[in-house]
């Protein structure tokens, strides 16, 4: 059945209202978009790393997690924790202690801090052990729960509370860590990068592939943060769209090593169209910092060219 947003939103909600995520935050929209890809009849266990999502969605004695089981243990180990849940499932299923005809899926959510930084070892280990889990990083490019400290996913030159724009340095001095590529190098059957774009077809289809691919899968989802990035809450969709249209956040997937760029802008916009929407890049628009925007543009172009090249090369290899 072709994707139809009106039909898809009729599916049961698994993260329901009452949670305390900020208005204009990308994370809950991302989570719901991912969980909608579950088949209605399937159950899931969700694991969350410590972070905004976890502290806002499960405040005792309440929970916003419905029609899934949910577990939070600590910051750096959502992957290891979920790998234990998945192993228990396999063990109990094998012993006939769980119904044969009921299927449970295993999905972890972590922010970029809990995924690219402190959770990297746990994630790498779980992926290498080939647990049948899907890990989704909702990437807002900083430690937002503690008040916007830089992470290894913070974009080059972004202003954060631990990489402030000052007189000597202009925001984060290092470019981003590219975890999506690191996940590709774990030889996963499916890796994707997505965003809240258009009618949410991109994220839905990628989540569906990830959840229903046998083996470990990884999704990196662009997840704007109004407080940390400095934008009006209603601009969530606009900022996501500009990230994609400027190729600052390219949409692509890698299925068994074969790259596919899932959206190619008809006209690639200059990166400053994206940068100028957020206070974290405000200092780059001073006259003396113009070269920094040029540097970001070069990095964006380089990654975009790399993806197009990988798409061509890996598809050709596949044909051969």
């Amino acid at each position, binding site marked *: 059945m072709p994707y139809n947003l009106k039909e898809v939103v009729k599916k049961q909600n698994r993260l329901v209202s009452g949670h305390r995520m900020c208005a204009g935050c990308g994370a809950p929209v991302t989570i719901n978009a991912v969980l909608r890809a579950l088949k209605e009849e399937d159950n899931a266990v969700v694991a969350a790393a410590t972070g905004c999502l976890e502290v806002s969605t499960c405040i005792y004695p309440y929970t916003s997690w419905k*029609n899934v089981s949910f577990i*939070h243990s600590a910051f750096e180990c959502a992957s*290891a924790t979920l790998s234990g849940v998945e192993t228990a499932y396999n*063990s109990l299923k094998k012993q006939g202690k769980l*119904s044969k005809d009921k299927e*449970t899926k295993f999905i972890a959510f972590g922010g970029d801090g809990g995924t690219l930084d402190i959770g990297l070892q746990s994630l790498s280990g779980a992926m290498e052990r080939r647990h049948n889990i899907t890990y989704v990083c909702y990437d807002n490019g900083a430690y937002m729960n503690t008040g916007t400290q830089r992470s290894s996913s913070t974009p080059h030159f972004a202003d954060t509370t631990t990489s402030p724009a000052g007189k000597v340095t202009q925001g984060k001095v290092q470019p981003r860590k590219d975890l999506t590529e690191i996940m590709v190098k774990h030889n996963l059957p499916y890796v994707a990068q997505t965003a809240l774009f258009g009618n949410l077809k991109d994220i839905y289809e990628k989540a569906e592939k990830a959840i229903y691919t046998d083996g470990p899968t990884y999704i990196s989802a662009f997840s704007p943060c109004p407080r940390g990035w400095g934008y009006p809450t209603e601009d969530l969709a606009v900022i996501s769209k500009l990230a994609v249209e400027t190729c600052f956040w390219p949409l692509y997937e890698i299925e068994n090593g074969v790259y596919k760029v899932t959206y190619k802008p008809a006209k690639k916009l200059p990166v400053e169209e994206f940068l100028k929407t957020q206070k974290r890049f405000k200092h780059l628009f001073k006259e003396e910092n113009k070269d920094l925007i040029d540097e970001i543009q070069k990095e964006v172009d380089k990654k975009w060219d790399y993806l197009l090249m990988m798409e061509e090369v890996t598809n050709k290899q596949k044909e051969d």
Partner: protein
Amino acid sequence: MSIRERLSGNEAVATAMKQINPDVVAAYPITPSTEIPQYFSNFVANGSVTTEFVPVESEHSAISACIGASAAGSRVMSATSSQGLALMFEMLYIASGLRLPIVLIVANRALSAPINIHNDHSDSMGVRDAGFIQLYCENNQEAYDNTVMAVKIAEKAKLPVMVCYDGFITSHSVENITLMENEEIQKFVGTYKPEEYLLDEKRNISMGPLDLQKYYYEHRKDIADAMRDAKDIIKEVSEEFAKVTGRKYELYEKYKLDDAEIGIVVLNSTAGTAKDVVDSLREKNIKAGLLKPRAFRPLPYNEIPNELKHLKALAILDKSDSVNGYCGPLFSEITSAMYSSNVHVNTVNYIYGLGGFDVKTDDILEVYNNLQNIAKTGKVDKTTYYLELEDGGEK
């Protein structure tokens, strides 16, 4: 019918784990507990267990995977030592906080720095407040028996359990040991039936919430209450175990203590050495005795002072140091319990055997000699000694 065998401590514990046949084992190698995941993965590879084994990339992930697997509703075990246990630190509190009955085998080893692979109790004493029940074992038989009982104690108390025995001294020494039959163990541990778990097909649950001030305090008190209640659970399970095996276990073991005038309190394998010294002193009509705690968590805070109150002098031996400028943890806790029970006995503390520094019968004899002197004079010149590092107890 019991089976007579000759096994090392690690082999004995791995054998118990095989016979228990848990649903999930997640573990990471670290000396001296490494043999456990080795033996166990062999059992898995050869089909002698139905357990799923998770060869994780760190101890942090070992305990995290155990937490996930236990929360999912399965019976879970692991093993570690030293730095591995230290790396697990934050997750140990989460295991007990989520009330997960994980059984964690600890082959006790010193903590770095300097790095040292040999035995002392710095590792398990370092995590004594993590909400784990801690059972200490003198020899291979006790390590085996406590491993079997730990499963049942954990599941009844809804608290995780550490089974602690001395690295190398116990883990690698081969001793005669009596094993239970597989069927006996299966009958004893029974089927694990958790009340609330993630994979319950009848309802979904959320675990690991954020607790604000009011609920956090209440939930932490629940854990403290569970630990208090665990004392009776340990007794019950031990009585049940005695009925099956004939081997009796209490919260602590007394050795020639009831009519003793001088006594020592000591954990694990050193108790074996000390019992020999007690025997030799008794031959000379010196009334020496010994108390060996089995449960350190929960602490038998009422019972132990009561057993010690008739002594004229007491030494508490610590194979770890609190580095508090004062004493070791066993001394601190037992003298505190004595104080609150209005028991006053002249008591000294001996730190001993750190990093596997060998403890011989002569060294223990030195402790008893000091106690005889204290008993005679009624005077305690010094509270804390470092056994074998001081000449005649003074330096």
